[in-house]
């Protein structure tokens, strides 16, 4: 692998982490996942009788690692129990930790999040917390042992893109674990911007699964992430106020 994403010592060739929520059916999801090139994809934990099964078989068939999340949890206690159940069911100690405050915003509850992260790290989990774009909280999550931090660009499912690019840059500039832009991506340029700002990866679901053509949007996101990563590594020119001729002025 040329430029792998490394989280907790594990290498991934793709810097696009996908979610599985919102897809009309499993065959649409399958085409989108294949087009995205993803190697890591989230699943939720729900009661056995709930609909939406079959996703684990699909990921297994595609050779994509499942990343269980704690979506729907409101307290640290709920999230810790859900993570432990996921570890048992999926035989992985990786977890995307989500503890949201309310249904309207689905914003992370920072107090419960930090508490849950601490308990799960102590319990041997590789914790990938979905967090607000707060540089102070991001640093705290890293300090307690999270394997990555995953700040939002904007609230889940809004497609509003990255509302505070400066905060994302601040988080990136101080992080020594990978920063994964999680939530808010609406289209490919948002994914590219996240990578240009220095994120190590992008996690998205709705922007693909609810697009008119999920397969094509997945391909767009893949290209966006790759373009943004290349641009970040290439080093952009500084912004200038006045024009600067690119052709020789003499001769």
């Amino acid at each position, binding site marked *: 692998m040329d430029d792998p994403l490394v989280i907790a010592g594990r290498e991934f060739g793709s810097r696009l982490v996908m*979610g*599985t*929520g*919102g*897809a009309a059916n499993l065959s649409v*999801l399958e085409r989108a996942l294949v087009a995205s090139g993803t190697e890591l994809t*989230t*699943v*939720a*934990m*729900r*009661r*056995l*009788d*709930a*609909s*939406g*099964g079959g*996703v*684990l078989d699909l990921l297994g068939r595609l050779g994509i690692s*499942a*990343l*269980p*999340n704690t*979506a729907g949890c409101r307290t640290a206690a709920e999230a810790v*129990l*859900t993570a*432990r*159940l*996921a*570890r*048992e*069911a*999926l035989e992985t100690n990786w977890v*995307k930790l*989500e503890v949201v405050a309310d249904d309207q915003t689905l914003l992370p509850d920072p107090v419960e999040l930090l508490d849950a992260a601490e308990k799960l790290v102590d319990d041997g989990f590789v914790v990938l917390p979905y967090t607000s774009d707060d540089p102070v909280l991001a640093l705290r999550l890293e300090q307690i042992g999270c394997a990555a931090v995953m700040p939002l660009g904007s609230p889940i499912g809004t497609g509003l893109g990255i509302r505070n690019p400066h905060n994302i840059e601040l988080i990136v500039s101080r992080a020594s674990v990978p920063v994964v832009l999680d939530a808010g991506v609406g289209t490919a340029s948002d994914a590219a911007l996240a990578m240009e700002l220095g994120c190590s990866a992008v996690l998205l*679901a709705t922007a693909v699964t609810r697009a008119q053509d999920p397969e094509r949007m997945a391909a767009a996101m893949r290209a966006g992430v790759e373009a943004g990563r290349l641009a970040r590594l290439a080093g952009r020119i500084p912004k200038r106020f006045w024009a600067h001729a690119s052709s020789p002025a003499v001769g």
Partner: protein
Amino acid sequence: MKAKVNGLERELADGSTVASVLALLDAPPSGVAVAVDGEVVPRAAWGTTAVPEGAVVEVLTAVQGG
């Protein structure tokens, strides 16, 4: 005896174990996890862990999400 399984009150045979509750639910052999009264029961202990009277049993699996 009675127990609450995934939110539903159920009448279980006396001496029921986690494994027998899973059989009742027709649970697949992999990809599920069980908590009894808020504590995860490891797979290896399903056959030997009794479900107490009035227990709250949660059986979870992975679904599309996130």
